[in-house]
């Protein structure tokens, strides 16, 4: 507690009269609900997706509680099936897909470009309300009979079950449009609103990754919309598309579904990689190593990501030749991902590494994403995938990528840009403690699931053989610890809002444009045009104890002043 107290006392010392910023420039419900300011929309998105994350997390805890014993623990078969379906649907569609682009990206992208807002501010607000609409439909589906199809909606189960498939499909359809709006807006913004001096190769890598993400959102999401429309048409009108009883083909659905949902995996992970590129560079005090390779690898992943959907269907009865082609293409995606990891390491080489909370999360990301990526090799190889497909090995793999990767990176980004968004510094002690907890508990939860899967434990099983109980119990204990650690992280941030030290404009010494404006930024982001510069020229910044933050270095000043930030 002493650390918190110390920081609280120092907060009083640093208190300066606060200027007008985007948070206090107008008041009242409509100043938020009808805002076109990308920063306020980002905050609304942030609160909403975190609400969805909490809901998805509650479902996760319920699943883990039920799996404490091999038979019934707290719920029956059907309730369990509903719970894992909703966990997947809420986490995927309401949380992970919009988390980084719509919440963090929305806030940061225009400021990083030195722009006042995104290209289409009204469309941005519309995207948020589409998200709310989609979320309401999904919640309605939970109330009106639930959903028990798995988040994948596989036919003909989804066309014959008596749960609220149509309501949920409409919800996901609407959420798809929300995602398309965000993507379209970002693409146009990056093309048209960069300052003249900022060429494509002087953009921060987070923007490259958002650009790659947006391409996927715009090109792949319509396919999901069409697929779900066909599903609803079959269920409601009896038009035979997927159900063999009506002359349809159930495997066709899987092709359509994964044609969106595999690229969607890259919608989730690409922006996460972008955040890590920023953080590793800033807290190693070194330019990112191999900027062009990292930038191109985002685009390569986005494009190759469209060509690998068939690797979800190696046991579905697709032809051998397509299985072989999809397996080969799958391996090709792992090369650009590997390039990024090696480049992050090379960035740290001979750096000056500062273990702030965002950096601790970024290092956790490298650890967890490396496991997630490498276990993908077992699933990309045909012979081993046949055994591991639809087992807990797959569950562990995608949680390492989606949660160990995207979620951890999202939290890293949240801690990184938190001072900019809120104007407050948080306690580094509690921030790091939360990070350590998340990291350790995450491994405790999901590593045993690799062993479960390889030993033949299928996913989506309510009952399971008693020999697996120990692994399940370790995993359940891990899940509770993970939940507790996430609360520590949340309280660290919430506490900072009330007691945190005021944030300087540039607490980390980063060189991208968002750190040139005040924290929090004014309504139009910049009081005067930001200075042109290389986003990774970290030597241009120097710590100034008077500001308790960084400012531009004057030519005459030494590179390494006698030390440095308060961190």
């Amino acid at each position, binding site marked *: 507690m002493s650390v918190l107290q110390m920081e609280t006392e120092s907060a009083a010392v640093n208190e300066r009269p606060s200027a007008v910023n985007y948070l206090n420039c107008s008041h009242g419900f409509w100043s938020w609900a009808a805002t076109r300011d990308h920063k306020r929309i980002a905050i609304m998105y942030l609160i909403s997706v975190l609400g969805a994350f909490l809901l998805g997390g509650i479902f996760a805890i319920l699943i883990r509680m039920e799996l404490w014993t091999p038979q019934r623990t707290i719920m029956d078969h059907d309730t369990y099936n509903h719970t894992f379906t909703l966990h997947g649907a809420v986490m995927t569609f309401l949380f992970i897909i919009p988390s980084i682009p719509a919440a963090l990206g929305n806030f940061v992208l225009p400021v990083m470009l030195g722009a006042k807002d995104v290209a289409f501010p009204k469309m941005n607000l519309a995207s948020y309300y589409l998200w709310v609409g989609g979320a309401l439909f999904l919640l309605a589906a939970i109330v009106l009979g639930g959903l028990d199809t798995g988040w994948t909606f596989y036919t003909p189960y989804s066309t014959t079950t008596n749960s609220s498939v149509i309501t949920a499909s409409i919800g996901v359809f609407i959420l798809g449009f929300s995602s398309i709006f965000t993507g379209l807006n970002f693409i146009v913004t990056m093309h048209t609103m960069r300052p003249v001096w900022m060429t494509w190769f002087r953009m921060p890598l987070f923007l490259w990754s958002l650009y790659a993400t947006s391409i996927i959102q715009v090109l792949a999401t319509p396919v999901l919309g069409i697929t779900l429309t066909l599903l609803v048409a079959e269920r409601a009108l009896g038009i035979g598309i997927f159900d063999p009883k009506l002359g349809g083909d159930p495997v066709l659905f899987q092709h359509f579904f994964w044609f969106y949902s595999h690229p969607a995996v890259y919608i989730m992970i690409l922006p996460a990689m972008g955040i890590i590129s920023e953080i590793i560079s800033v807290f190693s005090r070194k330019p990112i190593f191999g900027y062009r390779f990292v930038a191109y690898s985002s685009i390569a992943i986005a494009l190759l990501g469209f060509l690998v959907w068939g690797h979800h269907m190696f046991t579905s009865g697709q032809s051998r030749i397509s299985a072989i082609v999809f397996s080969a293409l799958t391996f090709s995606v792992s090369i650009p991902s590997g390039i990024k990891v090696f480049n992050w*390491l090379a960035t740290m080489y001979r750096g000056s590494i500062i273990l702030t909370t965002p950096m601790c999360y970024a290092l956790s990301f490298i650890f967890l994403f490396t496991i997630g990526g490498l276990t993908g090799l077992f699933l990309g*190889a045909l012979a081993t995938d046949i055994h591991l497909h639809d087992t807990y090995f797959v569950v562990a793999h995608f949680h390492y990528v989606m949660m160990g990767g995207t979620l951890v990176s999202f939290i890293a980004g949240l801690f990184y840009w938190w001072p900019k968004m809120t104007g407050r510094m948080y306690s580094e002690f509690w921030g790091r403690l939360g990070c350590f907890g998340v990291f350790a508990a995450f491994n405790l939860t999901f590593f045993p699931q690799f062993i479960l899967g390889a030993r033949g434990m299928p996913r989506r099983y309510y009952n399971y053989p008693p020999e697996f109980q120990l692994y399940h119990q370790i995993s359940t204990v891990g899940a509770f610890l993970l939940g507790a650690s996430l609360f520590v992280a949340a309280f660290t941030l919430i506490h900072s809002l009330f007691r945190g030290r005021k944030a300087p404009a540039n607490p980390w010494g980063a060189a991208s444009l968002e750190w040139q404006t005040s924290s929090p930024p004014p309504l139009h982001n910049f009081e005067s045009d930001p200075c042109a510069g290389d986003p990774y020229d970290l030597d241009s910044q120097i710590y100034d104890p008077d500001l308790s933050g960084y400012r531009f270095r004057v030519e005459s000043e030494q590179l390494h002043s006698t030390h440095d930030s308060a961190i």
Partner: protein
Amino acid sequence: MDPKTMMAVSETEGGSFWFPTAGTQIAKEVDGLFYFILALSTFFFVLIVGLMLVFVVLYRRRPGYARKFAPDHNSTLEVVWSVIPGILLALIFFQGFTGFLDMRTPPAETYEIKVVAKKWSWAFQYPNGYIEGELHVPVDRAVKLTMTSDDVIHSLYIPSFRIKMDLVPGRYSSMWFQANQVGDFPLLCAEYCGTKHSDMLSRVIVHPSGEFERWLEQASNLMSTLPPAEAGKLLYNRRGCAQCHSMDATARTGPSFSGTFGTSQPLADGTTVLIDENYIRESILEPMAKVRAGYRPVMPSYKGQLKDLEIDAIIEFIKSLK
């Protein structure tokens, strides 16, 4: 889960840390590839995380430490760390691909068994027409399964043989294996199929050479030699009835078989029906025709899968549970 399948499942406790017992040659090949990828992955994981930790220690910011010059790109290095993993990936791909072809290419001579899956039971039909809920096979002989589903997609998974294949309604899929170990191995459904997906379990029983034919002959004749009610009980356990219908008056997914024969019961549409021979026969062949009140219409039809003699045996069995 009934005690029998539980026992079969517990036999997987052999095997290694990562795998259940390997019951086929192909399973050993799959394990070999798995360990190869595991070794490569471990190497790269230790390399990446090791370097990361070393860098954090060596280059952490501290008083008196000044960062030294390091280049911000090096094309040769970057090409090297793209190409070397690329070659290793090609190697993994190639091994996965050849193993897959072995797995999917049955030899010319196979023993063929037909499989029909439905919510939530398996039916294995042997060449002489005999059907059972467990998969019996001879050891050291290639067996080919020709499979389809009656309702939704299921997936036949035998962990000890490292094989899995989806059963899709409206089409046939196939898989093959050659067990080289006598014993019982669990057989599971791996594609989510609704309420009792996790109870859709059976087992593979690998018979010693010469004994399989004897077993098949005995089992096929059992129906005609047993009294009908006992034959009915056997079918009840083997053909999936037990999954949803209890023998002790508790209601499960379907109504209990106990104490219902001869009574009148309300239907979902508000009318009542007398539970007699005709009603039972109709419910087996066309389960949606008259659904009992309080139960969901989920029973699959057994039309063409139970012979008249077998339906009679089940009726006798239900009668005996008064």
